[in-house]
């Protein structure tokens, strides 16, 4: 049954219609969660003892950082799916995610820099976490330029998928950089194994903002992948009916 569902969902046509069906629900639910969490975080949580009000940028910086890495991981999974099972939709998703990944990484870098001024006294430091995130941003730009340099979509998809898989080595480096090197950037406040080092008053709106931001970015990915399908499948008869 699961196999049948995957095969059915892997068809661009089914995917497109399912996206149209669920997109609005995901968008409005995510928007409500994000706005609610941001308001909660900005207006109702107390000031941080050390950082004062500047800590509130956490509600943008942490979701963006989390997503910049998660989107690359999603691209790597989609690339493997495309190369192993030749699922066309996976290739569409890879190139649909790349610009959004670049955008979230850029937000993470900029918001981190803004946060760095009051906290560290500098907007930039060549420490392992920040540098590896910058490398991720350059990787995203490289992936986009590689794909755009080929007019043959199939060839571009294959090459892009290979590069995404090789570049995935950067993700554990970013994740563990704060543990492997002595960095100015603090270590993770929320982990799967340990108790969060952040107070629950600040933690709940943070989790809400991560979920809300995640949902909104998913909506962007859905729209972007929809565009890819419309471009790639433009000669199919069902697309003409759809448009």
């Amino acid at each position: 049954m699961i196999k049948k569902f995957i095969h059915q969902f892997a068809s661009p046509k089914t995917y497109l219609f399912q996206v149209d069906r669920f997109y609005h629900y995901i968008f409005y639910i995510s928007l409500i969660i994000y706005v609610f969490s941001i308001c909660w975080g900005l207006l109702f949580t107390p000031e941080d003892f050390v950082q004062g009000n500047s800590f509130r940028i956490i509600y943008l910086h942490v979701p963006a950082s989390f997503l910049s890495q998660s989107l690359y991981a999603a691209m790597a999974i989609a690339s493997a799916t495309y190369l192993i099972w030749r699922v066309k939709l996976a290739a569409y998703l890879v190139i649909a995610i790349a610009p959004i990944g670049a955008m979230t990484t850029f937000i993470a870098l900029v918001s981190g820099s803004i946060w760095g001024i009051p906290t560290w006294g500098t907007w930039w430091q060549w420490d392992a976490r920040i540098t590896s995130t910058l490398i991720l941003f350059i990787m995203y730009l490289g992936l986009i330029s590689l794909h755009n340099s080929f007019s043959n979509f199939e060839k571009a998809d294959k090459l892009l998928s290979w590069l995404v898989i090789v570049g995935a080595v950067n993700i554990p480096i970013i994740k563990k950089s704060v543990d492997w090197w002595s960095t100015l950037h603090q270590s993770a406040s929320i982990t799967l194994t340990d108790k969060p080092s952040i107070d629950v008053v600040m933690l709940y709106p943070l989790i809400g903002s991560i979920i809300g931001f995640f949902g909104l970015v998913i909506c962007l990915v859905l729209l972007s992948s929809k565009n890819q399908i419309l471009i790639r499948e433009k000669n199919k008869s069902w697309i003409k009916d759809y448009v």
Partner: protein
Amino acid sequence: MKILKLELLKLRKKTRSWLGPILVFWLIMIAYPLTVEFLQEKLEIGFFSVLWIAILISMMLAAEDIFTEDFNDGTLEQMMIKSSPFSILVSIKTLTYWMLIGVPISVLSFIFSFGTTENFSLSLMILPLSLISSYIFLNLFVLGNALSLNKGSVLGALITMPLALPVLIVLGKSLTAIQLDINFISFILLLLGCLSIIMVAIPLVVSYIIKAHLE
């Protein structure tokens, strides 16, 4: 062994391909003292950073036309239909380039390092670091050039350069470890670990990429 000999002969005849990167490395290392105040302390401060970047750039130039000629004259297609796995042929080609370019550059790194720091034991430790890092960089740029086979080497270098940056960070840290006399071997082991993965994975990926180009 026969293929290795053939590749060595082919590369040796293309003097510009192997001598060019070595000369560029030489020029960077010679130009460096001219850009700073000619005092021993001042020279030593930035020397190793320049050394690693010079190795990186030389390897980028070394891998520039590794497949171009073979791709244009159809040799790659012939190599692909041979009975031996294509990834092994890619490994041998990379090894050939490293032997003729990477090894001399590493030896030069040792000489320049000794000339600048006048510290023999430190310079001796630079040798394995240069040998390993040059092979890692070469493999990464081979990947980049395979990806952008007929699109120019600049794109290839740009897309794989980010992958080389973590190696630069490790090189910087290992040098600190040498200077402070702490746990230097662990950095060598870390680089060797990376190299062992790269040596297996990159030729395999490159062979698939070239197949995609030729399809």
